[in-house]
């Protein structure tokens, strides 16, 4: 399933748009950037509550298909600017990381 399809199906909206047709493969949940840096795999959906600018830095290096900002967390202003510059997909949802992960498991088989 692509990032766009997953977003539409689950009522998530884009806070930053890149290549929305990227396939989602697997997911990583975590808010510690050092851990995320070494664990997020290319193509993953990365689920986090962190909205600071460094998530864009980590995403630029690890290349997840999207970042999903869970629990209605917001992005810092400069995060949005940087993510847009770098073409990083960031989705927003009120769901918890667990709920999003369950949906990814069910829908992205």
């Amino acid at each position, binding site marked *: 399933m692509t990032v766009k399809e997953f977003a539409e199906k689950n009522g998530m909206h884009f806070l930053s748009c890149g290549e929305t047709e990227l396939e989602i493969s697997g997911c990583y949940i975590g808010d*510690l*950037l*050092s851990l995320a*840096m070494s664990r997020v795999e290319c193509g993953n959906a990365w689920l986090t509550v962190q909205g*600071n600018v460094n998530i864009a*830095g980590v995403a630029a290096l690890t290349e997840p298909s999207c970042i999903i900002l869970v629990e209605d967390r917001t992005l810092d202003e400069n995060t949005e600017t940087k993510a847009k510059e770098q073409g990083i997909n960031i989705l927003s949802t009120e769901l918890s990381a667990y709920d999003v992960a369950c949906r990814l498991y069910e829908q992205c088989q």
Partner: protein
Amino acid sequence: MSEKAISLHYEIDGNNFTVAGQASSSIKKVLKQLGVAPEVIRKVAISMYEGEINTIIHGKGGVADVTISSESIIIVFKDNGPGIPDIEKAMQSGFSTASDEARELGFGAGMGLPNMKKYSDNMTIESEVGKGTTVTLTVNLQ
């Protein structure tokens, strides 16, 4: 890849978390253009990013010099920060002296140096309290 080594120099601003990752992103692009294997690029990107963050959080800024040759990628981080009193302790996973500000941003988990060691083929640390720290990372290409 050409036999001639490529040298790149980066200034790392000590007070600016928002630019963290710029040097690593730049190196990643260069390595991609040179056709370096993705797993090697990943190792360099991770260890370089951690080094940048450390230079900002602990070193109060500094420089990174990267040398890319046909055998290896050598990254040298040099700062004029407070130095590391106990390197062995600093190397322990989970040990951190990061500020609350750094922790709120998702850093300070005590993963920086351990990650740099894990994702490089060799790491050396030279540090003098009150003078600064130099960390040298080598990632082999062959």
